[in-house]
């Protein structure tokens, strides 16, 4: 019950575990008869690094391409363009055996714990499967490994090992999915909205489990979520994604205390807060309108159609994700830094936020 801060092994972030460069993932839609019906630009020119022991959070709305980005990293399907370098090895273009070998250190946990587990398999078998697939140990060794990972995620192997997913709660299922991902001792776990289908008390339990495992096993996470507060809780750095592009990337404290991209600010002001002191925010900063279609994204800056401070240049010129000081990156022609505190647009500063 005490508030403990777990410091990961790689706060300094010297070693790059995953390098993503200019990744592009597009899907061609087909009309009747196979005619080309348009190109869905799911991920457009995304680049970032992920360091050993680091958690990189990716936030964005539905349709921003964050799940597609994670799937492109594990090559399911491989991206159209760009590079994905994991532990110094280029994954794009790898085939069958080589790809399988590379994926051993790269596991994934999905959003829906029920549909990502085979309903007919027992928990032990689900967790053992990756070990069989990679030919790890003999039967006795695999059983021991299954028991130890189930213990690790807080499930009693004797009690839960023989159960089927339908006999478990959502939180327990997600623990099984995590145990399956951990069985092969991966370096990096890609988590795609891993707790968003869970109730708030269970969500807190599972989030704490993620933190505990990260500290104990020296894991790295690519943590995808739409909830900014949740991402802040687990991340070292955060990337904000909008319509297939990164808007902003940087250390978590700086992004939350002083967002540079207007979209990040809009997201931050949209969060309902359980503190009555914060109360109802200024509705003027709630962004208007709908996410444009990824089939036909706006020219220039993709956020310009909903941006309150868009200007002519935003339509003409695509803003590149450019580095600023202190490891921050922003893709905006007119970042908020200078004018930011002037208007009442910022979320009300509480002591913890003004670090």
């Amino acid at each position: 019950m005490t508030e403990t801060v777990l410091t990961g092994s790689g706060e300094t972030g010297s070693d790059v575990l995953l390098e993503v460069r200019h990744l592009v993932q597009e899907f061609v839609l087909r009309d009747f008869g196979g005619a080309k019906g348009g190109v869905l630009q799911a991920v457009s020119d995304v680049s970032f690094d992920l360091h050993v022991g680091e958690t990189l959070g990716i936030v964005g709305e539905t349709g921003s391409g964050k799940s597609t980005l994670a799937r492109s990293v594990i090559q399911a399907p491989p991206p159209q363009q760009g590079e994905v370098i994991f532990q110094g090895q280029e994954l794009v273009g790898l085939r069958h055996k080589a790809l399988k070998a590379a994926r051993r250190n790269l596991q994934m946990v999905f959003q829906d714990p029920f549909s990502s587990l085979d309903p007919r398999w027992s928990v032990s078998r689900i967790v053992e499967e990756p070990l069989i697939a990679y030919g790890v140990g003999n039967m006795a060794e695999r059983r021991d490994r299954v028991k130890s990972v189930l213990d690790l995620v807080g499930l009693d192997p004797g009690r839960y090992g023989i159960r089927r997913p339908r006999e478990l709660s959502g939180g327990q299922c997600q623990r099984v999915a995590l145990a399956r991902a951990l069985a092969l001792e991966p370096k990096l776990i890609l988590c795609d909205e891993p707790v968003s289908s869970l109730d708030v008390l269970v969500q807190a339990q599972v989030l704490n489990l993620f933190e505990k495992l990260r500290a104990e096993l020296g894991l790295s996470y690519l943590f995808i979520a739409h909830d900014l507060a949740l991402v802040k809780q687990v991340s070292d750095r955060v990337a904000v994604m909008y319509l297939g592009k990164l808007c902003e990337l940087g250390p978590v404290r700086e992004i939350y205390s002083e967002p540079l991209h207007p979209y990040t600010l809009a997201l931050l002001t949209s969060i309902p807060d359980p503190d009555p002191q914060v109360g109802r925010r200024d509705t003027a900063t709630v962004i208007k309108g709908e996410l444009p279609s990824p089939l036909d994204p706006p020219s220039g800056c993709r956020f310009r159609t909903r941006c309150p401070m868009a200007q002519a240049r935003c339509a003409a010129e695509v803003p590149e994700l450019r580095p600023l000081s202190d490891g921050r990156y922003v893709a905006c022609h007119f970042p908020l830094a200078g004018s930011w505190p002037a208007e009442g647009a910022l979320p009300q500063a509480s002591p913890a936020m003004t670090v």
Partner: protein
Amino acid sequence: MAAPATAAGPGRESAIQLAPAPLLEVSDLRVTFRARGTSIYAVQGISYTVEPGQTLAVIGESGSGKTVSARAVMGLLPGSASVAGSVRFRGEELVGLSQADMRSHRGRSFAMVFQYPERSLNPTMRVGSQITEAIRTHEQAGKKEAHDRAVDLLKMVRLPAPERRFYEYPHQLSGGMRQRVVIAIALACGPQVLFADEATTALDVTTQAQIMDLLLELQQQTGTALVMISHDLGLAATYAEDVMVMYAGKVVERAPAKELFAGVRMPYTQALLDAIPRIELEPHVLLPVVGGRPPDLAAIPLGCPFAPRCPGVQEDCRQEAPPLKQHEAGRWWACWHPLGKGARP
């Protein structure tokens, strides 16, 4: 808050009335599901009132009975459910009414917005027809009149290009736009109580803010009472005046939102608050959690339902369930050992 637009509901005048009857009065509502010889006590005696223009948030985890209790008020439960207790709308008793009589209330007295807009809408019908259907089911209206009113409703919920959208199908709209259509249908006959059952849970945070702002604005225009059912305490704190927390089929705490969050009394509410990741917290701070799971609703436990998980549990908590009582003006809680003012365990 604005006064209700229309004065008289469908209810008949009671003979003697000392005080005007509340708009909606739920007392000792119990819902039991019976299946294969077992009974599930989904709602175990809850009481609350809703006044015109009020915003009440009902908060709880999955299975706490928040949706079931709202559906019981609406008369939308399946035949396997038995409803006991009393639900009075402007003094008229609704429990025990026939489906036909309930139909005359639905839409006009109260309406509901559900969690998944794509499941509330018929995928094979044009958006406009679904609104005119709602209007023409509950009221005498010609086709032209219904059409005009539907377009006005789409304008009111700020759907862009309402005349064009009228002829589109749900799949041509985004999730936020679909939820606007569902709200338009719910508001079609001017309900006096609007239930929003996790109406923004399936939406993105920016869309959620748009929809909640819209609901509150429409509420202020029409004087409708809003009962928002949610698992999100943050949403309740931001948008509701009153908050009612449910656990295992019971109301465990009720208070005005500001007072509740300034000093929680019931340990369960505190546990819910503590478990929310908040942007004020530092990264990698572990959240305080309570272990365990909500009790099985197939049996009503002897003591307080939260006792097995409560960090401050005492012997008497396991012996007798604490009743929900008003301890301070406007503040109700069901706990033998409430938390002190502002103190955290």
